[in-house]
């Protein structure tokens, strides 16, 4: 049992209308150190669950009122980024196809084997942690990029395009010394120590911003 890297262990939301299924699955999921919050009513889950938490969602397909597939549609439409694992008692190929098309991460048949479910959940959580980290890194990069002056952005664009200081100076009609100053500022403001780091972290952002006004 590996300790989760996030300060709080990931939270699994389990939505199933059957109390016995809910309790037993929650117990099983709990054995690998994941926190579980159980929901009996899909509507209540949709209204109240913590969208900011890191984790995954387990949905039963067959539920009274609003079915699992409809809940999945709502989650995707809302832009919820937690991976969704669907559980069904009578999975047809068509249902499976629909679920994956709608954006389910995994589709499992009841009764589900512990290895299968736990592996699916660990994968889902890992995927979610990674995507959250990626989006956090992306946000930090954007914040730093916003601190650059207009001229520094131009210089950055030309650096990632592969131009030397002299070529940049010529392109922007500046003296090579000025370009060197801008370049040092860019490296400092973006917190980069090497060209490779700069390109890895900001090439995509610089190209994306070049297209924008």
């Amino acid at each position, binding site marked *: 049992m590996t300790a989760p890297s996030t300060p709080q262990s990931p939270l699994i939301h389990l939505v199933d209308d*059957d109390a016995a299924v809910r309790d037993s699955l929650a*117990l099983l999921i709990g*054995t690998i150190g994941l926190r579980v919050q159980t929901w009996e009513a899909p509507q209540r889950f949709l209204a109240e669950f913590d969208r900011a938490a890191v984790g995954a969602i387990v949905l039963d397909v067959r539920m009274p009122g609003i079915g699992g597939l409809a809940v999945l549609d709502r989650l995707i439409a809302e832009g919820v980024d937690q991976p969704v694992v669907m559980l069904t008692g009578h999975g047809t190929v068509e249902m499976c196809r629909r679920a994956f098309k709608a954006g389910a991460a995994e589709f499992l048949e009841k009764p589900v084997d*512990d290895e299968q479910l736990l592996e699916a959940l660990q994968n889902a959580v890992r995927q979610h942690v990674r995507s959250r980290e990626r989006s956090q890194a992306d946000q930090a990069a954007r914040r730093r990029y916003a601190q650059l002056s207009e001229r520094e952005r131009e210089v950055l664009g030309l650096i990632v395009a592969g131009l030397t200081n002299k070529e940049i100076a010529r392109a922007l009609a500046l003296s090579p010394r000025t370009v060197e100053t801008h370049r040092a500022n860019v490296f400092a403001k973006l917190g980069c120590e090497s060209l490779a780091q700069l390109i890895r972290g900001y090439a995509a952002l610089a190209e994306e911003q070049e297209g924008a006004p």
Partner: protein
Amino acid sequence: MALVHQSQRFELQGGRNAEAPGGWHFRFRKPLASASQPFEVDAERRVGWGELPWGRMLAWSAGMAVLLAGARLLRRQRTERRRAEELLRLGQVARLNTLGELAAGMAHELNQPLTAVLASTQAARRLLDEEPPETGAARDAMAQAALQARRAADVLGRLRGTLERPDAARREPVDLRQAARRALHLLEPEGERRHTAMRLEAPEQPVRALADPVALEQIVHNLLMNALQALEDVPPPRREVLLRVRAQDGQALLSVSDTGPGIPAELRSRVFQPFFSTRSGGLGLGLSLSETLAAGMGGALTEGDAPGQGACFVLSLPLA
């Protein structure tokens, strides 16, 4: 007929013009386009009632009437047969639908407790594997598993209660020969389509069995359809289905045998199991349904010995 020139009239041929008062009058006038003979031809004929070919007309009408009536009778017979077939099929479909729904509902009802049992026991094992083992939580998980196993058993118990037939209230004396004839009649077009000869062997006197006529009809229909389908790979001249009705040892027996390939010995024990079929695409419910129906009427459906190598099924019912 006459030739007319400037109100002068030259009779060429006289006729029965004047003597027929009623009837129809036909007249034809035409100027002869000739400069030397500017005559006008005037042909006149009167046809009286008496001249019509009454005898032949009557014979033709009568013939047509007979023909139309015959066609109508034939068509009505065909629709009646089709309707009967339809009813039989519907009855079967309704039963199968009920079975299908039952199966789907049962699958869900059983799946939930089974999911809980599996998850609980697997959680318990994991809890016991821990260092130190969490025996308390594991014990609770096992209790939960036992509870859910009991819930699954209750589902099955309820199902059995639903499926049990109330009693044999709908049974009445039925002549098996008539039931057999009726089934053969219904499937006659099917037999013709499959180039299969279907024969009935029955005694002179009625064989009265105590049965539910609808269920009986379905059983015979199923057996005949199975026999017809078993003959698909047999060359047409050797395709034969024999239906035998007889009373024997206080029982009314109806057997259906075919000249098909028969049922392999290793599969014999399974033909009455639901969802087992030797036919690709077969639902595998015909024989199991028939057996259930036969048992419901206090009878039985068993495999008999075919005269040749084909399959033979025997329906036995209590004599009325």
